[in-house]
């Protein structure tokens, strides 16, 4: 096989391996389905009744929080994919991968693609709870929503791989990933509306690429949204590309 063919086969092998691992892990599947269900059913519905009067009158809190719940699933799910790198290092499997005659780029790509697939599946499960929060959309909108989710899943997974490449312990990974994920989530406009925030916080919201992902998801299913779709798509594309490059850089540096 030529080096390129081997690299491609390696991407497939790495992706397949992580997908098999995901589907064999019942707790992960349960978490993927259970977390968004609880979030939408309890949190969103609860808050819906608490302060729907303060929101944009065109939409209730349940409907408002829908895209946020998907984003949350993708953020936590994607970030967590980075832990597979720490895991592989801890249990020796990474060394077996690193002595294979494949480029580091192929390894990062395989890990990131597999992680993004798993993350997207989790996002899928979250999105399927739409009826629970009385969100309705047609097939075409569903495809647009899925595309928006896919780009975000790729970007966030790459971020997870970046952090995972630099961490040596599970504990370290847990701490750092929470530090990264929580602000990205809270400042995305997915949990609370961003109008009326203090200026410093509003600036952070605008600087947060996840904001545009949430906005794009809203736009794709016909909900009120803040930015033009071209801006949302542009920011997401840059976000995903930058994160993939960061993942590659971090992995290369860590693996030598």
């Amino acid at each position: 096989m030529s080096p390129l063919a081997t690299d491609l086969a390696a991407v497939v092998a790495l992706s397949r391996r992580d997908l098999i691992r995901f589907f064999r892990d019942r707790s992960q599947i349960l978490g993927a389905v259970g977390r968004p269900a609880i979030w939408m059913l309890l949190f969103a519905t609860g808050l819906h009744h608490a302060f729907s009067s303060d929101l944009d009158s065109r939409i209730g809190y349940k409907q408002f929080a829908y895209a946020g719940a998907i984003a949350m699933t993708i953020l936590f799910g994607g970030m967590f994919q980075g832990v597979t790198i720490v895991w592989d290092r801890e249990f020796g499997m990474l060394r077996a991968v690193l002595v294979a005659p494949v480029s580091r780029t192929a390894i990062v790509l395989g890990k990131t693609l597999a992680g993004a697939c798993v993350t997207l599946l989790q996002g899928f499960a979250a999105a399927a709870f739409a009826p629970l929060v009385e969100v309705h959309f047609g097939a075409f909108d569903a495809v647009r929503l899925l595309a928006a989710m896919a780009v975000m899943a790729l970007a966030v997974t790459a971020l997870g791989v970046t952090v995972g490449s630099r961490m040596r312990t599970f504990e370290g990974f847990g701490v750092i990933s929470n530090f990264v994920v929580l602000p990205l989530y809270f400042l995305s406009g997915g949990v609370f509306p961003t109008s009326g925030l203090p200026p410093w916080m509003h600036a952070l919201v605008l600087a947060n690429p996840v904001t545009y992902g949430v906005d794009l998801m809203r736009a794709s299913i016909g909900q009120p949204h803040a930015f033009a779709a071209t801006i949302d798509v542009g920011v997401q594309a840059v976000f995903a590309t930058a994160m993939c490059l960061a993942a590659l850089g971090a992995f290369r540096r860590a693996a030598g």
Partner: protein
Amino acid sequence: MTAAPAVCTRALSRSYGSLKALDELDLEVARGQLFALLGPNGAGKSTTIAILTTLLAPTSGEAMVAGWDVVRSPRQVRASIGVVFQEISLDDRLTARENLEFHAMTHGIDASRRSPRIAEALASVGLSSAAGKRVRAFSGGMKRRLEIARAMLHEPAVLVLDEPTVGLDPQTRRTVWEQLAAIAATRERTVFVTTHYMDEAERCDDVAIVDHGRLIARGSPAALVARAGGERLVVRTEDDAKAAAHAQALGWRVGNDAGRLVIEGDRPEAMLARLAERAAGIREATIVRPKLEDAFVALTGRELRDVREEGGDRAAMATNLRARGRR
């Protein structure tokens, strides 16, 4: 393929802070050899392997595998080697077959050749019936055998194994060594193995002993054994003085060890027969043939290694326990 040596290092050094794990190591292993790298704990064997397998950069010096420089051409080096690491490196959530499929795909084995190669490799280590079982449920020995099968799957030019037979039962150890010998017997492919088992090292064509990151002995097992002193006859007789005089008269070197005569010379069986002819009353006789283990101990000394570090660990653990107790 070039006629370059399978492995060649020049002044290879690696430091961890102030510790020199490898200190100007010069090592050349010819192609087609069954080669063993020996050394006490902490001697630098695994460090050497990490560098040869491109996982660790040398601090200075250079290393070539199958004619490729490990720093400049890592991908070519990786394409030439099959590795068994000291620690298990399987994916325990996958089955044995899935582990090998993963390896085949990352080592450029064509899709059409994967299945037969995998079946063959599994059979060679007696794991055919466990192919569909998750590695998690494997015993330590089964995991090791699977790793050995994996390292050989893509028929690498240089097989590198770090203490591959630790924890294996005698039957498996024997089959593994038969396979390693068969690979080297092709005279095309090379086996580079580290081991603490001297009986295994004695089966090799060529042996190097390292200590403190330096090469301290090199040669065939027989040549190294010869350096630990020749064969000798140890006897206890009714009249040691008379027996010693006879032995000296025959031109043999005679010494004394714990009330026994130690007589050095060639072919101790013949010496015993001749001595028995002249000096009656031999009560006890032993023929001592030094083994590689004697040579190893003679060359590397008797003190245990890493004792200081282990002591440190124990002290740290005790402190830890005390701290917990207080809580």
